[in-house]
């Protein structure tokens, strides 16, 4: 049994013109101590998926099917009490823009204290501060920063504080949604190093949600590629980057400039993701896929394991062939 299991999860977002099928039949798992990279472009549902794990979906978004199991217990049907205990303590979430995620009116030390007191209202203040200091130490932030307000800190420091608040209760899983978007290149690199150190030191498991293919390659063990609310491919980072199966994955990996290579041309994928209020019948990528077949337009391919540890949802591999671009 994996630490976190997502089983056939579907999420809907009813809006005035219809219902957006934001996430459909997503199954994923996260083992203890591993980093899972959840990649995709905007609108693919990855952030929605991330939020749903802790049942943080904003209404009218709601989970309409499937289960999310943490250590065997289903989160979707959890009662409020248990859910509140889970959040922050067992599973913590780190968001994209720390300036807006941190309360600008509250000093950093109090934000830590608040988090701790959420789970244990009687927790000793001195002890709490000591723990916060320890965390800041591990994060490479000076202790005196505890007495600052968010706006007095730099972007990189704020992001570290966010992680710190996430870690203060020693969670087992951290879900990080685009944690480096607002950071400069060098700070971003430092942040990734930090995450790597933390996962070893604290035995953390991390779900990294991002569209930054360079960043996720630096740290992920396994990856899942999302498109139009569905998982189209999963595998180890190495498999996804070097031996992809799905045409979308191939396009995604090869449309990114790589500073180590001398690239002649980048792959482009003309077209747009499908309308999720009225999704197409077959494979959602069929109208953009350079290798589309008739079957793709009519039947939805299921995520199937094609190689050890690597699964893909694509009709090209029914006969266990090789990807068409390998010829």
């Amino acid at each position: 049994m994996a630490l976190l299991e997502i089983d056939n999860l579907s999420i809907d977002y009813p809006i005035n013109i219809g219902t957006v099928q934001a996430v459909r039949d997503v199954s994923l798992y996260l083992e203890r101590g591993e980093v899972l990279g959840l990649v995709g472009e905007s609108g693919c549902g990855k952030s929605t998926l991330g939020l749903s794990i802790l049942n943080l979906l904003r209404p009218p978004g709601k989970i309409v099917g499937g289960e999310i199991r943490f250590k065997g217990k289903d989160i979707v049907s959890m009662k409020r009490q248990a859910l509140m205990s889970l959040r922050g303590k067992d599973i913590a979430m780190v968001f994209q823009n720390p300036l807006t995620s941190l309360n600008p009116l509250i000093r950093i030390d109090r934000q830590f204290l608040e988090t701790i007191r959420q789970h244990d209202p009687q927790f000793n203040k001195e002890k709490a501060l000591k723990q916060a200091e320890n965390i800041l130490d591990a994060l490479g932030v000076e202790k005196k920063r505890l007495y600052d307000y968010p706006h007095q800190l730099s972007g990189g420091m704020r992001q570290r504080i966010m992680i710190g608040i996430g870690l203060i209760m020693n969670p087992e899983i951290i879900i990080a949604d685009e944690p480096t978007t607002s950071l400069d290149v060098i700070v971003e690199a430092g942040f990734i190093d930090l995450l790597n150190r933390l996962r070893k030191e604290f035995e953390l498991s991390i779900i990294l949600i991002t569209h930054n293919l360079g960043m996720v390659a630096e740290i992920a063990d396994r990856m899942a590629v999302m498109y139009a609310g569905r998982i189209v491919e999963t595998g180890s980072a190495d498999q996804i980057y070097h031996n992809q199966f799905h045409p979308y994955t191939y396009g995604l990996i090869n449309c990114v400039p790589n500073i180590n290579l001398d690239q002649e041309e980048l792959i482009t994928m003309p077209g747009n993701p499908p309308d999720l209020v009225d999704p197409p019948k077959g494979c959602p990528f069929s109208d953009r896929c350079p290798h589309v077949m008739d079957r793709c337009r009519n039947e939805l391919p299921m995520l199937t394991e094609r190689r050890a540890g690597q699964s893909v949802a694509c009709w090209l591999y029914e006969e266990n062939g090789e990807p068409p671009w390998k010829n």
Partner: protein
Amino acid sequence: MEELIRIDHLSKEFPVYRSLLDVLFAGGKNPMVHAVDDISFSIHKGEVLGLAGESGSGKSTTGRLILRLIEATSGKIEYRGKDMQEFSRHEMEVMREKIQIVFQDPTSSLSPRMSVGEAIGHPLKIHGIADKEERKQRVSKLMERVGLSPVDFLYRKYPHQISGGQSQRVVLARALVTNPEFIVADEPIAMADVSVRAMILELMRELKQEFSLTYLFITHDLATAKYLCDRVAIMYLGRIVEIGTRDEIFGRPHHPYTQALLKAVPVPDPAARRTEEVVRGEIPSAIEPPAGCHFHPRCPYAKAICSEARPPFKEISSTHRSACVLD
């Protein structure tokens, strides 16, 4: 190669906003931010010069200075050998046809109340080029060229009705409609989705060939800079620290900041994971930057002389300069 733009000791200072208390108690002169601090370089006809740096480097300000959207504090900007700051009204009008800018956020660059067709055609109207019929034709042809089709359908659409990728194409078309020869592209792909970035980059390449354009490509993403640019200038806290050809900068970086930056760039390849630690520290405040070489507090090779005076440029080759006293 013909020199199209020449920047000579260009500087731009911004006064720092101070609260009433600051003014009353701190007194003294208003602190200034040296957004651009005495930079000099040229842009040759037909090339793509990259201006790369992190936040606070002054790259965006430089772009705006060249277009005279903001006025320089000191220094010269020459266009085709003539001082732009001495331009007559007529010369300025011509300049606005020949030099264009594309901003980072395409949707915000378009007036919400102007349709796609109106927006693209507006420069023609302003400069009194072509009558209404001919304008429409030119706009339609350009829309076709940048991939905005079906033209009739999109002509009447408003910015909020089209996607981000389409918006950027509209902005590109608008920049091209007066047949410019030089375009400043200020992070044109930063806000676009991963696959859309590749399309815009490829489009920009094609347009450059077809319309004989020269680009100043402002970016924080060095991988993209390597892909697109012929020469690159690296900026840090308002100064150019290194400038050279693509091969020189990416193959033989001299300045410690350039080296650190290149090492920190995330590579979309798990096999190429960074093994070294990144340079420590963060970008210091632009209001009171470190004395001498701005980078010295973070530089692993810093010597005493580095904090004393601004390092002069060292000519490594006829095309490669680095503002560092070492080696």
